[in-house]
């Protein structure tokens, strides 16, 4: 274990050096998910302007974030894969949801613009299982009677690194396709039967943008930044929905955080006519009894400020947590995090 810790420390130190950042006392350090990274960067920028305190966030992936916080090399870890209440207790961690967002399927098809193509969960699962191999397959044609689909092979693009986005994506596919559940299952890095791998949300977005007749899955902000063609989806209620903040919000509204122990909650495949089927929350993890209490206090101040500035999240099409949940999280901080 010591060796692994050593590697992790080396990794973080290397990443910090590479970014040319020197950690100062007032800087808060965190590492983890790439899914909310664009938002954390925006929040950090605004926070720095307002308070002078910086945030050093390394988007190394959810699994990495959990590893880092367990190894105590950072003040907070960020993950899209919620830890169960037992896991949190075992590692002495406290977890809360920071923000919610949507995962969208993106395609690269000549002449097809955003929202012009539609897909459902079962078809998506069959594409990633290699059972649907061509764009003019009957299942895709049936969903898109008015779209001219090319007679070409599909190149599915997946995450080559372990990923919280992949975890939520495969969780959704497992919910809607028994076949997917049996053959691939829910995992941050499953055994993909077909397709090519790319690193990070940005890597998948880049590969889809670059590869004709490809399909991929990314957090909505990445699809928007790269101006990719996203697909509409059929939700649990059988309705066709377009990925918009309103659709993500509709899915998020179903979440009953008060009844979720340790805030363990997955938001995929929610009921409701307007609900976007692939919605996920992203989480923060901190130690209940931090070794550096001053840094921990500073981090909580930042998160409290971030909750108050949900507007910044909305601008990037993330969904801020509802006021009731924020109140609940503040109580959790007061009782569980021993900063004194």
């Amino acid at each position, binding site marked *: 274990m010591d*060796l692994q810790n050593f590697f992790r420390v080396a*990794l973080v130190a290397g990443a910090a050096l590479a970014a040319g950042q020197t950690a100062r006392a007032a800087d808060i350090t965190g590492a983890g998910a790439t899914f909310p990274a664009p938002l954390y960067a925006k929040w950090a920028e605004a926070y720095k302007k307002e308070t002078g305190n910086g945030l050093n966030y390394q988007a190394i992936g959810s699994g990495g974030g959990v*590893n880092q916080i367990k190894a105590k090399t950072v003040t907070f870890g960020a993950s899209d894969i919620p830890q169960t209440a037992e896991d949190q207790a075992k590692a002495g961690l406290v977890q809360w949801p920071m923000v919610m967002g949507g995962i969208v399927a993106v395609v690269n098809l000549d002449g097809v613009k955003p929202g012009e193509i539609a897909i459902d969960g079962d078809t998506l699962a069959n594409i990633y299982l290699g059972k649907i191999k061509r764009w003019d397959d009957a299942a895709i044609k049936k969903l898109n009677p008015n779209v001219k689909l090319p007679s070409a092979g599909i190149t599915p693009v997946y995450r080559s690194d*372990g990923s919280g986005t992949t975890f939520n994506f495969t969780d959704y596919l497992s919910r809607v396709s028994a076949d997917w559940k049996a053959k691939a299952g829910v*995992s941050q890095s499953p*055994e993909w039967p077909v397709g090519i*791998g790319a*690193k990070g949300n940005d890597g998948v977005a880049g590969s889809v943008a670059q590869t004709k007749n490809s399909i991929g899955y990314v957090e909505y902000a990445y699809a928007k930044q790269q101006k990719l063609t996203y697909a509409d989806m059929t939700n649990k209620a059988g309705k066709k929905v377009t990925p918009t903040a309103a659709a993500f919000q509709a899915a998020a509204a179903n979440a009953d955080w008060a009844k979720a122990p340790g805030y363990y909650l997955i938001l995929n495949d929610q009921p409701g006519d307007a609900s976007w089927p692939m919605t996920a929350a992203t989480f923060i993890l901190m130690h209940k009894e931090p070794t550096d209490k001053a840094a921990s206090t500073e981090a909580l101040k930042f998160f409290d400020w971030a909750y108050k500035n949900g507007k910044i999240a909305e601008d990037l099409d993330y969904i801020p947590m509802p006021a009731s949940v924020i109140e609940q999280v503040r109580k959790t901080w007061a009782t569980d995090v021993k900063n004194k």
Partner: protein
Amino acid sequence: MDESARAQAVSLMDRRKALNAFRIGDALFHRITWSAAIFVLLLLGAIIGALIWGAAPALSKFGFAFIYSERWSVNNEIFGALSPIYGTLMSSLIAMLIAVPVGIGIAIFLTELCPMGLRRPIGIAIELLAGIPSIIYGIWGFFVLAPFLKEYVMPALDEWLAPVPILNVIFEGPGYAASLLTAGLILAIMVLPFITAISRDVFATVPPVLKEAAFGVGCTKWEVVRNVVIPYTRVGVVGGVMLGLGRALGETMAVTFVIGNSKRISFSLLDPATTISATIANEFQEASGMYTSALLALGLLLFGITFTVLAISRVMLARLDKKAGA
């Protein structure tokens, strides 16, 4: 004691002092360089030790199955390295098949046939190729070479070779832009300058008298190259090829961009694959426990492969030196 004797004594004292200072300086210099050399050895030992220690849990759990098993399942903690090993060896093989004839061809042209005025510009261009960082090759491969291959080359290969047995399996379409073939081509371009530069240098070691004698008995340029230059320098050229191979085996970033990162072994070169170094680069940050150990075991394997290749090239180059000296 008169004045001159005293002066002599003083100057003797000064001399001793100065000599002493030199001796201390020399000893210090010796110590510093000696510890620098030992430090490198210690570092190498520590890296090998850490790799073996980290890889031990995975190697003891999976044994030899780690090398010949294809399945890489993070969820079930089952790790087999066959697919990355296959991708590493195949992509390097493709690179060598292309880079060796082209590289030696350029070297022959530069030393035997090229007009004097062109030798320097072409030589410098080749050396510049060697100086381009690998990430640049990766970006170029991703944005330019891969789409070009997918759009124009792969459909043609698939169609033309469809009736040819064996080749129709190796080039079975429709093909992916990010594939083993793309990675092999990028690697070929990356190792080309190494092979060219070393071949050119060893071709220059052929004594002119040998070539002149061959020309004297009426040999053509081709016959001189075929029967004098190549046999004389064979070992050195192989050494250069091995150095290139060493680079191809370990190349990480450029390959990760264009190989498609897929752990399925396919006999078609147009399908995606992965290499040992690409797998490690992709997955290290997320790993823990047995997963980390399996990745370290992969690293140990790569270390073993490249070490063997480099050792062979060293031995061959040493044999060439002996021959040139004799």
